[in-house]
């Protein structure tokens, strides 16, 4: 590729990066809140994204329900699902060593993915609505409606989460548990329940992202795994415990991913992980530092 050709696609790539990054930040937000508050690397997170994408798919193909309308019900269902999982499974080992929770969520992921594989088969599916792929131009730059909407919805949900955590009683309880569990207990916060709510929120965020991802990518039972790793990198980039950090991390990741894809498509992930290791070593607290959802 010549320099001229490269420069000519820079604007489009920036737009691509923003739109990809927006959705990724939404995935990473849920991952971040569970990690930050519960100190769990939730490897089942990607599986929630996948299951929710299937939910949107079946609602669309079975009942003709527009995927955008599936977002709210998906979030609700997965909130309950996540709540139950945390309350009745993960809470049992939450005080055991890190490796234990790590492997536990991984076990859950294996179950979800294989049940999906068993029920839905390995077929590739995708949601094709009447407006799929349609978009508008800004100069030479193409902006697809769905992806623009996904970016806006992601930012909207991130904003809502931020307000929820800082303005509501439950939100304050969640943050209190994340900062100092003993103090929170003394103030009368129910730890087990708060954990379950937090995990439920994480699952709900994954569900919202899952619907949006299902609309612009293909859906398979194994689609989720990649999101765990990406979420981790994003959270580390932006700083654990920060909503703006996750969003910023997501956008940066999106940009790096897109430009790596333009220049060295084969080494996209290698570059992402080189970035991860570098950040971990140079600035372990992330770009925005540890803020604990303030």
């Amino acid at each position, binding site marked *: 590729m010549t320099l001229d*050709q490269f420069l000519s*696609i820079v604007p489009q790539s920036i737009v691509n990066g923003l739109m990809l990054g927006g959705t990724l930040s939404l995935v990473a937000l849920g991952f971040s809140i569970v990690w930050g508050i519960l100190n769990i690397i939730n490897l089942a997170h990607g599986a929630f994204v996948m299951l929710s994408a299937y939910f949107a798919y079946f609602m669309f193909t079975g009942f003709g329900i527009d995927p955008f309308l599936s977002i709210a019900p998906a979030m609700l269902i997965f909130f309950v699902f996540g709540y139950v999982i945390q309350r009745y499974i993960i809470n049992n080992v939450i005080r055991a060593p890190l490796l234990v929770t790590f492997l536990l969520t991984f076990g859950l992921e294996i179950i979800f993915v294989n049940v999906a594989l068993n029920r839905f*088969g390995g077929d*590739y599916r995708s949601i*094709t609505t009447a407006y799929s792929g349609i978009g508008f131009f800004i100069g030479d730059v*193409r902006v697809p409606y769905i992806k623009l909407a996904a970016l806006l919805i992601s930012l909207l949900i991130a904003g809502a989460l931020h307000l929820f955590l800082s303005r509501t009683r439950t939100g304050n309880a969640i943050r209190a548990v994340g900062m100092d569990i003993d103090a929170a207990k003394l103030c009368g916060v129910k730890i087990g329940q708060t954990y379950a709510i937090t995990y439920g929120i994480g699952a709900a965020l994954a569900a919202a992202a899952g619907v949006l991802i299902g609309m612009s990518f*293909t859906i398979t039972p194994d689609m989720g795994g990649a999101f765990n790793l990406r979420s981790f990198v994003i959270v580390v980039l932006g700083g654990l415990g920060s909503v703006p950090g996750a969003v910023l991390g997501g956008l940066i990741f999106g940009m790096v991913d897109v430009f790596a*894809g333009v220049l060295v498509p084969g080494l996209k992930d290698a570059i992402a992980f080189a970035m991860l290791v570098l950040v971990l070593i140079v600035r372990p607290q992330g770009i925005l530092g540890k803020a604990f959802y303030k």
Partner: protein
Amino acid sequence: MRTRISVLMLLAIAVLMVSCAPPAATNVAPTQAPAAQVTSAATKAPAGATVPAAQNFAGTITFGAPVSLTGATNNEGKYTKDGYDLAVEVINNAGGVKVGDKFYKLALKFYDDESNADTSAKLTEKLITEDKVNLLLGPYGSGPTLNATVIAEKYKVPMVEANGAAENIFNRGFKYSFGILSPGKNYLRGVLEMAISLDPNIKNVAILAANDNFSLEVADGAKQYAESKGLKVVYNEKYPPTTKDISSLLTVVKGLSPDVILGSGHLQDALLVVKQSKDLNVNAKAWGFSVGPATPEFRDSLKKDADYIFGGAQWTVALKYNGNDVFKTPDNYTKLFMAKYSYEPPYQSAESSAAVITYQKAIEAAGSFDPDKVRDALAKLDFVSFYGQIKFDERGINTFKPMAVEQLQTDGKKHTVWPADVAEAKPQYPAPTWDKR
């Protein structure tokens, strides 16, 4: 305390050794008893050849095959197995395989390889050493085939495979592997050939390939052919086989405005290329994919966006071969297949059936089902089947059968459009840009 551990360890080893053996015997559960099916289906088969005293079989020749019935390629594995089963049944109904002056019945013994290459090798070994099958049929996919053929080679048992098109399966100097499909490098050749004949003005080709051995071969073959015809390959890039996003590559492709865009990957990648091309308004006069358009999921997923897309096909229902085998024509094959399974045969089934037919011919030519004699007969085989010409080059792959081209057309159906002499519809060309559809 440690005594206890050691005793238990010893016990555990013993238990493991013992417990590993029984599955060989007990694991017939997933295997269908072919004999039971044969009789029930004999009445169903509508166009089966006249049955000469079917009961007087001198014995049974058993084929072994690892097939993916679960895991990532469970559908393709099922198509493969259905193809094997149908051919075994139809041949048995027609009197079995003639060895010398005796007739033998065919049977199939298979295991589920979980779409995993390692497991496929393990099961191949099990089929040879424990089930003592006579001859081997291939698993589904290039990866499992690559591993399974190694085992077959070691034990000097022929494996006729129908579902692994990567040529490097055959570039290892193996003597017992035979592939009846056209090799990877021919997959997209037909699309280019056709595009040139439709429009002498096309100049630029862009190729996107998944980084796995089959897809790379397809891309390489397409590139060589394009360049030999004076076309310019303006973009030829590979992406990780598990990728979920190709938009970056497509952004680059868009800037190069190629006349033809070729995708060499798998169904998922093909869907991604089409979806994201529409997102980004990337256009071309012709779109061709190696794998994807032939499967029903392609149309299901993309709806109208699948229109105008070409795909390479090993075999289609519409082809006009007149074969010297029990199935004779693609048309007749389709009838028999639909009668048994109630769905239109995908090419995976057809090629799998053709693999069984190939063995029948080789065994009859050798007058024996001794692995080495069958191997030598396979090497010399040359006949036309309902699936096309079957003949192996010195490496054991069928380089003689041409590939067809299918197109998903605006009437919502899939039509065979190339080679021109067997085409059932005219190609719709050029594809309109996305905003004009």
